[in-house]
């Protein structure tokens, strides 16, 4: 009886891994790095994580989870509430719809797929911020942020694969 309880607890803990890893990435994204002009283009690590887990473990990266993560990010970044939540929920939904394609594809295709998701996210973020401030904001910083995130994708992806194997394929 106790064994099953501990097993259950262990399983629950392991199932929390995608969420916990993404929360860590939210926090890592906030670290001050004293490089000129870095902060505006700091990569969107959370989007990579949501993308990865939606493809590999959609049962653990539900829309609600994506929403919560986005909300947390909004609260910590200090921007208008709901922008990142919207972005992650839409990304999660888009990826989930095309999941079969992504699952069967190679890493290069995954990367291209992520670039497309990122492009959509950049556009959405820009649109939301422009609408909220009622002006046309320059799209360039967001575009560079997107490019940097796409460039970071293999590194973060590798890390996520390691996490995935360590916690969920035991």
């Amino acid at each position, binding site marked *: 009886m106790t064994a099953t309880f501990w097993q259950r607890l262990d399983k629950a803990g392991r199932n929390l891994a995608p969420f916990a890893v993404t929360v860590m990435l939210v926090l890592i*994204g906030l670290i*001050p790095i004293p490089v000129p002009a870095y902060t*505006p283009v700091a990569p969107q690590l959370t989007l990579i994580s949501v993308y990865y887990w939606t493809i590999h473990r959609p049962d653990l990266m539900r*829309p*609600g989870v994506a929403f919560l993560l986005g909300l947390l990010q909004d609260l*910590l970044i200090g921007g208008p509430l709901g*922008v990142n939540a919207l972005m992650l*929920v839409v990304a999660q939904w888009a990826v989930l719809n095309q999941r079969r394609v992504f699952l069967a594809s190679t890493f290069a295709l995954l990367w291209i797929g992520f670039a497309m998701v990122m492009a959509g996210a950049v556009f959405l973020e820009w649109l*939301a911020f422009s609408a909220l401030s009622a002006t046309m904001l320059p799209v360039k910083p967001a575009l*560079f942020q997107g490019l940097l995130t796409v460039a970071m994708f293999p590194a973060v992806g590798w890390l996520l694969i390691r996490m995935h194997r360590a916690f969920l394929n035991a």
Partner: protein
Amino acid sequence: MLVFASIALMMVGKIESVSVDSARARVTDAFAPILDAISRPAATAARVIESAVEVENAFDENQRLKAENARLLQWKQAALRLETENASLRTLLRVTPEPSVSFITARVIATPGSSFVRTLVVTAGRRDGVRKGQAALAGAGLVGRVIEVGEWSSRVLLLTDINARVPVVLESSRQRAVLAGDNSDQAKLLYLPPESPVQVGERVVTSGHGGLFPPGLPVGVVTSASERGVRVLPNADLSRVEHLRLVDFGLPGTELDLAAEWK
């Protein structure tokens, strides 16, 4: 469903900004210890790299600093002379003394990586005496102002954020203007008269209008003046602020009392 929830949240955030602010302050408070812990290794790494570069340039730097020191000593003499003169003139005129100034020094623990938001989170909050609206200074000049205060952390809106507005005055022409951020590295001056003589290199300081900041805080330097607008580069390097001073000037209206501005 959740898409609508997000959009609804944006609306709520627009309308109910006070309660959203306090919720945000709570969450930031909760994560402040973790952010503090993980920002330290990053700061250390940055310092190690920086010191390596500094060792390489030590000789040149020493030469430059000696020259600068000689120049500053002359300025010091001038400042001392002016200070005594100023003091004696003040006693003649019975000027009311300026409100006392107190500083709170805080460490920057988070700089949100976002293309559309320019804020910092620092390790000082209500229990340290931080209040909403206080000016944040770093080394060479104004950085921004406190927009949200938690128990032991607070958030500073940088000058370059699109929502930042600071009443300023051009130092030599005494021309008033409002410094507005637009999420780029430089801020622009609003409400300048069209024919006002603005020169590149002119210093910009706070004007003290609105009662939020005291007059005369250094803000930045004009970098370009054309028909398309006047750009100002902040004195403080906003991308590498490590510590900043939150300044309580004891002025009336620092609690963002909007009514006070219209009196």
